[in-house]
């Protein structure tokens, strides 16, 4: 277990060793924590119309109050809670299904692969946002429905990535060596192939998270969110008629949403850099490549040039996979 925690801190250290990583964490961690601890930070009913209307931000009302006399800060925090619950649930479900299907498809190949990948193709053709609108029209708006729908449409991208990685990892000699030592197929996949696939999965998850946050907020913006839950999208929509006079009503929910989405995207980039070369025999504790470190003095030009080169030929161009 010590090994795991040690490589965990090494990972964090390398993440903090590059600007994108720091910025990403600064953008993601506060709103994420606020959302997860919403009940503690803003106890009570956030929708209670307990205050005067249209109060600008002050010491008493950190983000002001809205047209119905509700404290925006509490509502934003609870909106973040909705975002986080959706993100975490969707990611867990999508990761489990995506990794399982991708591993099975890549490892077994043949007919199994063909059938599963055609299924993936079919699901990829369904636009998640519009599917959600239709489903809500039929089933009514509900948080759980949304989670299931998003998970059902999100695992496909993961399955494709995992499959591609499994295809390449399974050809490597240590997999054959494991087989030669009598390892079964399942054991080989779990112990030897999947650990070598993990970096690719980890890189995609933040990008998936940012997409989920946007879809959830987008649906709520259109008035299709779960009416029992607050959402950043709902707050932004609600603020629209008052945009001209009461700026705080739009600005705070908007800033928080932007910060979360931007942060998740940057986090994906930073993960990509940190986990750049997962399978060249580099140990988890290995040194981060110098070129991605903080630019300082004479190193700056080299960093810029290297970054341009990296952008031209990124080994894991996952952003392209996730539409």
């Amino acid at each position, binding site marked *: 277990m010590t*090994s795991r925690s040690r490589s965990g801190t090494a990972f964090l250290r390398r993440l903090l060793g590059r600007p994108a990583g720091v910025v990403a964490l600064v953008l993601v961690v506060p709103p994420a924590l606020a959302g997860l601890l919403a009940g503690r930070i803003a106890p009570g009913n956030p929708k209670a119309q307990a205050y005067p209307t249209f109060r600008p931000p002050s010491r008493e009302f950190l983000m002001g109050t809205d047209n119905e006399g509700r404290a925006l800060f509490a509502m934003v925090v609870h909106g973040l809670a909705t975002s986080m619950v959706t993100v975490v649930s969707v990611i867990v479900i999508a990761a489990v299904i995506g990794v399982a299907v991708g591993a099975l498809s890549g490892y077994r190949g043949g007919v199994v692969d063909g059938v599963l990948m055609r299924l993936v193709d079919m699901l990829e053709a369904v636009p998640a946002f519009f599917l959600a609108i239709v489903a809500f029209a039929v089933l009514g708006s509900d948080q759980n429905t949304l989670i299931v729908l998003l998970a059902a449409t999100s695992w496909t991208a993961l399955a494709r990535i995992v499959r591609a990685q499994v295809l390449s990892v399974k050809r490597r000699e240590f997999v054959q*060596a494991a087989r030669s030592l009598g390892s079964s197929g399942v054991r080989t996949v779990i112990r030897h192939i999947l650990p070598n696939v993990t970096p690719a999965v980890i890189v995609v998850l933040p990008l998936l998270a940012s997409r989920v946050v946007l879809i959830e907020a987008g649906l709520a913006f259109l008035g299709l969110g779960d009416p029992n839950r607050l959402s950043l999208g709902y707050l932004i929509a609600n603020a629209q008629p008052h945009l001209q006079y009461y700026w705080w009503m739009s600005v705070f929910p908007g800033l928080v949403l932007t910060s979360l989405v931007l942060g998740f995207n940057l986090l994906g980039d930073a993960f990509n850099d940190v986990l750049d070369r997962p*399978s060249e025999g580099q140990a988890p504790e290995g040194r981060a490549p110098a070129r991605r470190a903080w630019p300082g003095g004479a190193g700056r030009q080299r960093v810029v040039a290297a970054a341009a080169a990296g952008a031209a030929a990124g080994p894991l161009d996952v952003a392209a996979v996730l539409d």
Partner: protein
Amino acid sequence: MSPPSSTDRVVATTSSASRSGTAAEPVLAVRNLRVRFRTARGVVHATEGVSYDLFGGEVLGVVGESGSGKTVSAMAVLGLLPANAEVTGQIHFRGRDLLGLPPAELRAVRGQRIAMVFQDALAALNPLHRVGSQIAEAITTHHRDVTRRQLRDRTVQLLGDVGIPNPSAAARRYPHEFSGGMRQRVVIAMALANDPEVIIADEPTTALDVTTQAQVLDVLERMRERTGSAMVLITHNLGVVTGVADRVLVMYAGKVMESGGIGAVFTKPAHPYTIGLLGSMPRLDQDGGRLTRIAGQPPSLLDVPPGCAFHPRCPHAQLPGPCATDVPELRTASATGHRSACHFADDLTRVSPSGPSLEPRG
């Protein structure tokens, strides 16, 4: 060496019971092994009717150029060929034909009774797992009831046995933290973790520095002697074979060209291909002029020449004649007493009775 610890016995019991077969009965008997790959460009005839016996405790050298079917025939024994391979023939191991074995039973044989040492140790080790845990895995795959402590002791003992300094610290390191020679020792330790009856070593020293080659070979040989395993040593390095093997199998284009005791084959080669191989090997014990070479290239296995596969490159080929039309059978050449697949084996041994050197060319 220290007396075997309790772990040693726990791990070793299963295989030691069936270890000592009678001398007459081969541990591994391969008969008429034929491996073909269906590819987009046609059928690759990787091996064509390879047969050999491996007796308990002996080392069989398998020699040939790249693409002569050495590795494929070894992989076939373990059932590790890709799905597009068609394998026919028989591979008898302890009275069972491995080719017909259900997957679960074949897995029980792999690693426990027949183990493989791979060529490229860096590639054969998983970069993400510590060396010790990879060796431990080789044991737990077959022995589920071993305690953690026994496992650690056995792992450290194996690492020490293969000559890795400070084995308990080494067990906690990752493969990339070792040098090439040390990594190959780890791979050997993995293969020998369950005291297999047969070791298949696929070019175990090819990826190494010349200076470490001898050390690693020495470790392999020492470990093999201790466990009493038989070994198939695949190599294209004749020097390696000479030092270690008891018998040798010379392969070319998926066929066995010559086989016999190491001394007999190398001093009285009865096949032009073997003669060519020996002639192209630098030797310190003979004051020779230029090294000879074998003209031309090995044939594509998509399109193996008719008759004797070696005839287009053979300096002794009688053309037109049987060389280009009839496939020579592997039969005992009267003059040498070992087997050769050359139509003119008897004539050859008369041509060069004393040594392996052909007339130097150029």
